[in-house]
């Protein structure tokens, strides 16, 4: 286990020519020419990059340096939030990760409830937990599909992308929308569950769990996959903590840190949650943790359906234009599909928030990428990159 980080912590130092006084964006700065080193611009128009660019320097098949360059999909969600009131912020704040829209909205809604002093009905809390766990599965399935195709496994692209439809249909029954639900509102959830939701949900989730267990045979126990991802991109426990990674990356490095257990919000403390931890810290562990998380989500959904009050209100009626109580700040965070997702809201007593800041797990996990890729082979780049559970749109906000 490494006790200190690599010496060149800021990898852009390697790339930017120090003699040039004028600052240039990454990739445009002059570089010392080395005949052996080839610079590859992986992205933004590259099948293995997502909405971002990786400036990778390779010596033969080995990566010498990697400089991630996010920011291609910056949409100013935080600034937009300052011009809308607390309720109208809901639809656009879930845009950073539409596949995980309930979880991305969760900290904002919790924060607004604390700012406005709203008490949420018990049934709404359970509905939120169910929706957020279903959405976590939907996100992870999408992530897993892309991880499959990044490794050249086309079946693992098609299967999760198809099985994801099960839960999307379930969410459609629940919220009325397939992807961008806008379901959570301050004071509860928008709609009550449909009449026969419980049995449909149990049936769908049982089938879903059966299906994802089949993935082990074709993907996680596949000898070629294990040989490719074992011991690649190893992130030690201490480095994972010091680099500030969260979620599946942190838990794959042996840190038992799940916000649903450590800082339970809504009704998570009443549910029996098992946190998946692996010690290896390699790409394989990082790719397996989300898969185990999906099975855990299925258990949570079952428990929540059992303990949920069978009737009652799911939403507190709010005043038309709710205002905060003077100058006030609140910070709430939840465990999203990628890790700890925080929302910091500053209120100045007006109907609009003074400032909304999203602290996103994707950006924290991306910080680890240059260290993990240094010295790796080029063939490991896609697996290490995507195993970090990184969503470019979320990182850019």
């Amino acid at each position: 286990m490494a006790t200190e980080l690599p010496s060149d912590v800021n990898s852009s130092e390697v790339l930017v020519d120090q003699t040039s006084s004028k600052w240039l964006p990454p990739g445009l700065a002059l570089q010392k020419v080395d005949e052996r080193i080839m610079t590859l611009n992986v992205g933004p128009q590259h099948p293995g990059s997502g909405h971002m660019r990786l400036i990778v320097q390779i010596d033969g098949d080995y990566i010498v340096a990697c400089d991630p360059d996010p920011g291609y999909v910056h949409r100013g969600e935080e600034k937009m939030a300052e011009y809308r009131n607390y309720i109208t912020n809901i639809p656009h704040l879930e845009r950073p990760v539409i596949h995980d829209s309930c979880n991305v909205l969760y900290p904002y809604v919790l924060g607004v409830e604390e700012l406005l002093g709203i008490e949420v009905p018990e049934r709404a809390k359970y509905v939120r937990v169910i929706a957020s766990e279903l959405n976590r599965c939907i996100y992870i399935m999408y992530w897993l599909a892309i991880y499959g195709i990044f490794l050249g496994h086309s079946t693992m692209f098609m299967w999760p992308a198809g099985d994801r439809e099960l839960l999307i249909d379930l969410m459609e029954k629940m919220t009325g929308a397939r992807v961008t639900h806008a379901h959570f509102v301050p004071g509860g959830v928008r709609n009550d569950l449909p009449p026969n939701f419980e049995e449909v949900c149990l049936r769908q989730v049982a089938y879903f769990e059966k299906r994802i267990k089949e993935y082990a045979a074709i993907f996680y126990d596949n000898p070629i996959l294990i040989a490719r991802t074992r011991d690649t991109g190893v992130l030690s426990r201490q480095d994972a903590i010091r680099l500030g990674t969260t979620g599946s990356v942190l838990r794959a490095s042996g840190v038992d840190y799940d916000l649903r257990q450590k800082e339970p919000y809504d009704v998570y403390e009443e549910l029996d949650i098992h946190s998946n931890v692996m010690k290896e810290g390699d790409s394989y562990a990082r790719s397996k943790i989300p898969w185990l998380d999906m099975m855990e989500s299925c258990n949570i959904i079952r428990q929540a359906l059992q303990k949920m009050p069978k009737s009652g209100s799911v939403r507190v009626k709010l005043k038309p234009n709710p205002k905060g109580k003077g100058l006030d700040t609140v910070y709430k965070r939840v465990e999203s599909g990628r890790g700890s997702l925080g929302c910091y809201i500053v209120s100045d007593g007006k109907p609009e928030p003074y400032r909304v800041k999203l602290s996103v797990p994707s950006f924290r996990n991306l910080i680890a990428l240059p260290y993990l890729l240094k010295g790796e082979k080029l063939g490991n780049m896609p697996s290490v990159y995507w195993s970090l559970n990184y969503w470019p749109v979320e990182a850019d906000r």
Partner: protein
Amino acid sequence: MSVIAPNFKLSKFIVSILGDVFWILFLIVLVGIPAIFIILFFIPLPVINGELLTPFLALSWLVNPTLTLPIVKAFMTTDIFRVMAFPGFGFAALLAASVIFIERKMMAKLQLRVGPFYCGKVEGILQLMGDGLKLISKEIIIPAKADKPLFWAAPVLFVATAAAFVALIPVAPGWVVADVDLGLLGVFAVIGFFPIITILSAWSANSKYPFIGGIRALFQMVSFEIPLILSLLGVVMVTGTLNLSEIAASQSSFPWIIFLPIGAIVFFITMLAELERIPFDLPEAESEIVAGWLTELSGMMYGLVQLGTYLKLYAFAGLFTVLFLAGWHGPMVIPPFPSELLTNGLEMGPITLTIDGLPLFTQEMLNGTLWFVIKTMAVIFFIILPRGVFPRVRVDMLLNLGWTKLIGLCFVNIFIALGLLYAGVLGPGGLQ
């Protein structure tokens, strides 16, 4: 497939087929017959019934079936028919096209989806034609700093080399384009030409991703050529010949895969690597290096490389069939040709017709072709199957496999072959 295409109407389908038939006949009259005339004008014409077949004579004979069939039969003995149509390019291209369709449908079944469905009304059977039309109609973009003559030549050379490979594969007894005594050596020579074309194309594109892909392809093909050649030595030892037709003929009672299973397995794995199929598709690894050495190819240049790839796939599968699966041998399932048609003739209404040119093909040839196609398709099935099951390997894993494990297994195979020879179980030409 249990799903029926929406808006499918049988009447429209029949009308569209009738329309197609009309246009085909129309085009044959306008284009086909003049084309036949031109072809007949240029090729050396055979002597039939004691007189030289001129185009005019041929056309006048086309209306008489008793005289047409001898012309067709004479044409089938020419080299141009062998190269263009039956054991050569046309047959291979037809099989390759069906392989693409089968691959798409098979992968779709494996991955719980439908696959090509709309193009061609029935199960998307004309999807490949649609893809080809799309590729032809696309603009060909060449990088500004590419070495243009080489860049243009590489796809054409690729198809030409693949077609040369196809020409060496015997399909039925006596039906092979190039029946050379050193056939297997010719195969090795042709296979050795592919990495050169790949690196030519990759280097002349003057672009980074094709360059990395080309280097990877070079690594892969060169390092897998050695186990490829060594794995076939066992067959050469037990048969004592390099002629592919003789190797196939020597397996009349049993295929060599029974005695040399290790060689067959090693050859199959190296075949996957030479064909750049998953799990060895590193030169085209999408998520790492875009499309590898194909990145800068556009339009029909890409289409030509794909055609060459599938011709190569067919040729390798055919080679496996010839070397290990007894080639064209199999139980006789084709019924014998009715000989009374030759002696008594065919009753057609009031007249009796005796047709001289029949049979066009012998019974052995048809049966051999059938078994060859069945076995080759089975091999291709197993070549396609890993694509749905395995992820891609890494370069170091690939080289490790090629240089250590496969070469070791090759020597085991060679010792098995030597043991069989010295123990007197097998000798040149078969079981002793």
